């Protein structure tokens, strides 16, 4: 995890997938006149921001050799909870505080629950978070009876639509989250412990690290960031959708792993995750821009992911 100033060329060689990403950008610029416009590139970052933010939490979890399948359902339920509370008859600033608070708090609680099951009951993260995934999804449907929550206060949809100078707010949030996460992972004690626990949890425990606490913290982080994404998504679609975030878990894990993080823990970076997320986001965007048929798109996405990772491996030989 060396992290001196990352220059472009350093990033490319270290985060191997970077070269594939640059190639992808170049290709789409040539192939579609609509691709390399400021507007579209901002658009891609806006679209990617939702899953990319989740991918940050997932990176922490996977670095500890865990996995979090509940992210997509947390997106849905946090969006639902936030919007439900927003609809309640509260004065405006309070409604927002309570709404956003409810969504984020739920993410934290879900993460805490996951962490406790993983550490105190020693249940494998896959099962714990799979169970939470179906439980939260079911709950979102029970609460809403399967209908979207709508008729929200005027300003809510502005959150995702706002711009800070030219940057969409979700993009800005994504950048901040990545920067913080990079800092935490490479510079702080907690980050170091995350790598240690993922690398060899028994050795980490014997080195005096409270491994259980570290594990709970990463699941809380993942829950919190998923909830944050869920709220942003709800704002984007100006409603709480119980079916939001379906299958996000696979997309997000794919981004993390394409970005070079090992599912066996102890190895990986959030910069890799950022590139992985963007690589996949740009791919979808580019193929849509080029009007590639949706069935064919699936095939192309699979092939490109395989090629990108292969390029990375061959170069590292």
């Amino acid at each position: 995890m060396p992290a001196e100033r990352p220059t472009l060329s350093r990033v490319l060689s270290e985060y191997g997938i970077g070269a594939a990403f640059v190639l992808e950008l170049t290709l789409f610029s040539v192939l579609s006149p609509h691709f390399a416009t400021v507007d579209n590139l901002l658009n891609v970052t806006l679209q990617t921001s939702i899953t990319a933010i989740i991918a940050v939490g997932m990176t922490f979890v996977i670095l500890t050799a865990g996995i979090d399948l509940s992210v997509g359902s947390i997106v849905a339920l946090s969006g639902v909870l936030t919007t439900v509370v927003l609809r309640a008859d509260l004065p405006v600033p309070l409604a927002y505080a309570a709404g956003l608070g409810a969504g984020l708090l739920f993410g934290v609680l879900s993460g805490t629950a996951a962490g406790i099951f993983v550490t105190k009951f020693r249940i494998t993260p896959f099962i714990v978070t799979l169970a939470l995934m179906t439980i939260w999804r079911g709950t979102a449907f029970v609460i809403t009876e399967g209908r979207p929550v709508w008729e929200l206060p005027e300003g809510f949809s502005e959150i995702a639509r706002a711009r800070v100078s030219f940057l969409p707010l979700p993009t800005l949030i994504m950048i901040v989250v990545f920067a913080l996460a990079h800092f935490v992972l490479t510079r702080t004690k907690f980050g170091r412990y995350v790598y240690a626990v993922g690398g060899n949890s028994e050795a980490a425990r014997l080195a005096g690290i409270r491994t259980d606490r570290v594990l709970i913290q990463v699941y809380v982080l993942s829950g919190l960031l998923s909830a944050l994404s869920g709220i942003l998504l709800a704002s984007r679609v100006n409603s709480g959708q119980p079916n939001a975030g379906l299958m996000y878990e696979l997309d997000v894990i794919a981004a993390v792993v394409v970005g070079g993080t090992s599912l066996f823990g102890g190895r990986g970076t959030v910069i890799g995750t950022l590139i992985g997320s963007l690589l996949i986001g740009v791919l979808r965007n580019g193929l849509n821009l080029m009007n590639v048929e949706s069935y064919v798109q699936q095939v192309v996405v699979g092939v490109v992911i395989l090629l990108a990772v292969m390029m990375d491996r061959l170069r590292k030989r």
Partner: protein
Amino acid sequence: SGGAKGEGEKTIGVALLTRGHVFYRDLEAGLRSEAQKKKYDLVITSAEFDLGKQISQIEDFVTRKVDAIIVCPVDSRGIGPGIRKANDAGIPVFTADITATEGAVVSHIASDNIAGGRLAGEYLAKALHGKGKVAIINHPAVTSVLDRVQGFKEALSAHPHISIVADVNGQGVRDKALQAATDVLQAHTDLDAIFGINDDSALGALDAVEQFRREGVIIVGYDATPPAADAILRATALKADVVQYPTVIGTTTIQTIADFFSGREVPPIVPVQVGIIDKTALEKTANQGAN
């Protein structure tokens, strides 16, 4: 449930296609409200687009010896073996919304998706004065959607100056539809209209259009769920919606079954009206409601 059944009390098994879409929530609501009136017990399951799962659910109904089964098939042909199982056990089967082509079905209660798609196409053609570029926010993994798109394209084929420039997969859910629609708007700055294969798709497209502040793009949706109706009334880019009456499909289905139980003859196909509504139509019904 599970206890001894009183005289006249009937249990009906329902195998829905999904419960993740508002259309089916309405259909289900129709089923429930009518069943409550008739004092029927409903056992509602949902296959979530998984045919194998749906067949298993029908098998579970057969095991339970329900008095009738309602299916919204994941696939018209594929559901055949499940229906035959029910046939073998002598349990009457009704289909709602989507037909079954194999096995014996007492009655099919539905609106016609191809016709609905055609309505959407014709509305757009008129609104565009026979000329323009159109995109489809599709979800081509579901038969009913394939039918809608087929009807839509048929209607447009009569208008040579209208071209379909994009056909993207929004997976029928609002967040994914938003993403797909955003890309379409990026690629086609001169887009005139969008057809969303259901309301989540149409509303996702609306989110995109509003976020781009793209004037002049019109959207037609499908299902006329409350949020969509609201958007139409607010004079947004969403101009019209194909209405099926899922609640009516639900209530009609139960009524048909009631008729069947009471020994009356029921028709093999019970049509439920489809239509298309726009702001004017909505305002009219609203006024009628007020009167």
